[in-house]
C-alpha cells in the first residue's frame, strides 16, 4: 500500500496535539435508567447503581486504550443518565439524596470524574417527583463529589416556567451556602437550561434524554488552541478568509472526535450517538476562545466587536464540523465558560467583559452564562432574573441557553476564587444592583413565543 500522507500533514497533526492542545474533551456514555423503577427506594437505588456499573465499567479502560492507540489525549470520561425525576419514584427528598450518593459511588467505582442526570425537566410545570428532586439538589451537590445536576426551566414550545426559575435562583443560593467552605463549588455542578439538548456530552448539563437509546456514546471535542494558531498565521487576511480557515481547522478537529467516537462505540458495543461541535476551552494558556476573538483583531474580549467576532467563529466551527461528522448534536457551538478560559478571566480583570456583554454573546453562541462567579450577597431573586433573561434568549431564538453561575459566599466583586483543575479560577464579576424581585415573585409562565413573525 502506498504512503498516503505528506510529511507536512503528519507533522501538522502532531503539532496540533503536542503544542496546540488538540484533545478529545470528553467521551460521555449515556445510559438509560428506564428499567430501574421499583416499589421502594432501596430497590430503585440498587438497580440504578448496578446499571451504571454494568454499562459503564468498561468506559475508562476502553477510553485509555483508544488514547494509546491513536495518541490523542481524552481528557474526561463521563456518564450521563436519564433525568432522575422521570424514573425514580422516590418518596421524599432524603431518598433522592441517597440516590445521588449511589450515583456518586457508581461514578467512583468506574472511574469517571462526573456523572450527569440528577435532573428534572420542568419547563411547563413540576410533577411531584420533579419538586422533590429539585428540593434535594443543594444537599445532593454538597454531599457528593461527582454528581451533576441540571434543570430545564424553559423551552421554545412551552415558554418559561417562572416558578421554576425562581426556585432555581433559591437552589443556587442554597447550594452556594452549603458549599461555602469550598468557594461554593457545588454551583459548578448545577445548570439551569432553556431548550436542553438530550444528547449533550458536556458537564454539568449532560443527561441521557428520553428519546435516546438504551445506551449511546457521545463525544465532545476541543481545539481553541488549534484555531488560534491557524488565525495567528494569517494576520492580514480578511474575515471571509478567516472564516474559511476556521472551517478547515474545525473540520480536522471534529474528525478526531468522529474517529474516537466510532472507535469507542465499536469497542464498547454501544451505538455511536453524536459528536458535539463545541470549541471547549481549558484554563491552559493558549487554549482560549477569548484569545481567538482577540487574534481576530479585538483589543480585549468583551469590547465592541466581540459579539460579531464570536458569531462568525461559532458559525464557521459549525460549518466545518458538520462536514466532518456523520452525526452532530449536543450543544455544538463555541463555549464561553468564563472561569475555564484564561483569556476570559483576563478580560474580566481588565474590565472589558461584563455580565451584560456575556449575555449578548450568548445570543450568538451556544451554552449561555457559564461558570461565572458572582458576589456572595447577590439575591436569589436577582439570580432568578438573570436566569429568566438567559432563558428568554434561548426561547425566542430557538436555541439552547443555560445558566451556571456561582454566587461565592463571602466574596465580593473583584475578588479571585480558585475552583481547581478544568474548572479554573475566576474573578468575581459585578452585577447591576437593581431589584427585579417584583417581576420574579409573580411566578406563573411566560407563554411560548410566536415563531412565524420572527423579527
Amino acid at each position, binding site marked *: *500500500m502506498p*504512503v*498516503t*500522507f505528506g*510529511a507536512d*500533514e*503528519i*507533522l501538522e*497533526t*502532531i503539532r496540533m496535539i*503536542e503544542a496546540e492542545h488538540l484533545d478529545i474533551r470528553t467521551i460521555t456514555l449515556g445510559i438509560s435508567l428506564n428499567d430501574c423503577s421499583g416499589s421502594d427506594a432501596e430497590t430503585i437505588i440498587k438497580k440504578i447503581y448496578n446499571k451504571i456499573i454494568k454499562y459503564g465499567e468498561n468506559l475508562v479502560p476502553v477510553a485509555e*486504550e483508544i488514547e*494509546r*492507540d*491513536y*495518541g*490523542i489525549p481524552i481528557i474526561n470520561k463521563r456518564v450521563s443518565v436519564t433525568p432522575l425525576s422521570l424514573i425514580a419514584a422516590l418518596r421524599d427528598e432524603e431518598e433522592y439524596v441517597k440516590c445521588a450518593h449511589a450515583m456518586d459511588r457508581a461514578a467512583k467505582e468506574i472511574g469517571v470524574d462526573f456523572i450527569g442526570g440528577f435532573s428534572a425537566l420542568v419547563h411547563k410545570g413540576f410533577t411531584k417527583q420533579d419538586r422533590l428532586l429539585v428540593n434535594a439538589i443543594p444537599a445532593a451537590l454538597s454531599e457528593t463529589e461527582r454528581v451533576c445536576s441540571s434543570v430545564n426551566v424553559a423551552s421554545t414550545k412551552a415558554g418559561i416556567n417562572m416558578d421554576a426559575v425562581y426556585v432555581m435562583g433559591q437552589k443556587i443560593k442554597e447550594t452556594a451556602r452549603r458549599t461555602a467552605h469550598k468557594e461554593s463549588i457545588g454551583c459548578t455542578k448545577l445548570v439551569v437550561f432553556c431548550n436542553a439538548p438530550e444528547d449533550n456530552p458536556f458537564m454539568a448539563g449532560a443527561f441521557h434524554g428520553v428519546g435516546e437509546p438504551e445506551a449511546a456514546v457521545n463525544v465532545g471535542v476541543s481545539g481553541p488552541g488549534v484555531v488560534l494558531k491557524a488565525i495567528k498565521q494569517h494576520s492580514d487576511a480578511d474575515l471571509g478568509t478567516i472564516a474559511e480557515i476556521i472551517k478547515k481547522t474545525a473540520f*480536522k478537529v471534529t*474528525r*478526531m472526535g*468522529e*474517529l474516537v467516537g466510532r*472507535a469507542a462505540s465499536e469497542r464498547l458495543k454501544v451505538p455511536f450517538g453524536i459528536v458535539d461541535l463545541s470549541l471547549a476551552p481549558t484554563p491552559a494558556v493558549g487554549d482560549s476562545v477569548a484569545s481567538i476573538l482577540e487574534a481576530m483583531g479585538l483589543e480585549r474580549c468583551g469590547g465592541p466587536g466581540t459579539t460579531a467576532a464570536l458569531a462568525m467563529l461559532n458559525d464557521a466551527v459549525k460549518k466545518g464540523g458538520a462536514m466532518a461528522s456523520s452525526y452532530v448534536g449536543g450543544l455544538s457551538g463555541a463555549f464561553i465558560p468564563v472561569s475555564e478560559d484564561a483569556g476570559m478571566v483576563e478580560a474580566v480583570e481588565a474590565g472589558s467583559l461584563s455580565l451584560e456583554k456575556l449575555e449578548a454573546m450568548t445570543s450568538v453562541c451556544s451554552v449561555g452564562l457559564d461558570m461565572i462567579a458572582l458576589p456572595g450577597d447577590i439575591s436569589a431573586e436577582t439570580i432568578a432574573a438573570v436566569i429568566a433573561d438567559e432563558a428568554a434568549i434561548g426561547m425566542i431564538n430557538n436555541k439552547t441557553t443555560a445558566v451556571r453561575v456561582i454566587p461565592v459566599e463571602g466574596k465580593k466583586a473583584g475578588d479571585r476564587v480558585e475552583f481547581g483543575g478544568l474548572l479554573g479560577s475566576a474573578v468575581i464579576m459585578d452585577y447591576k444592583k437593581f431589584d427585579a424581585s417584583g417581576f420574579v415573585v409573580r411566578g406563573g409562565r411566560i407563554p411560548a413565543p410566536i415563531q412565524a413573525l420572527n423579527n
Partner: protein
Amino acid sequence: MKSNRIVITVVGKDKVGIIAGVANVLAKYNANIVDISQTIMQEFFTMIMIVDISKCTVDFSTLKQLLDQCAQELQVKITAQHEDVFHYMHRI
C-alpha cells in the same frame, strides 16, 4: 482497527544512529517498516516512518513503551500513532 499500520515520527537533534536505533527496536519485535522519509528541518532531525505491526510480536502499547525507552537513550522525541488518525484528519 482495520489496518494495522502506525505512523512513527522522530524529532530531535541530529546525530549518528537515530535511524539505526529506532529500526533496531522495530526489527527486534517484527514490525515491518513500509516507508521511511527523513529530513533536517531547522537543525532538527525529522523522520517519519510508516510501520506495519500486524505481525509484531508485542502489542501496540508495549511497542510504544519500547520506543519511549529508545527515545530516552537517543535523546529524541518519538511519537507513534495509528494511521487512522491521519486518514481521518486529512482525507475525506
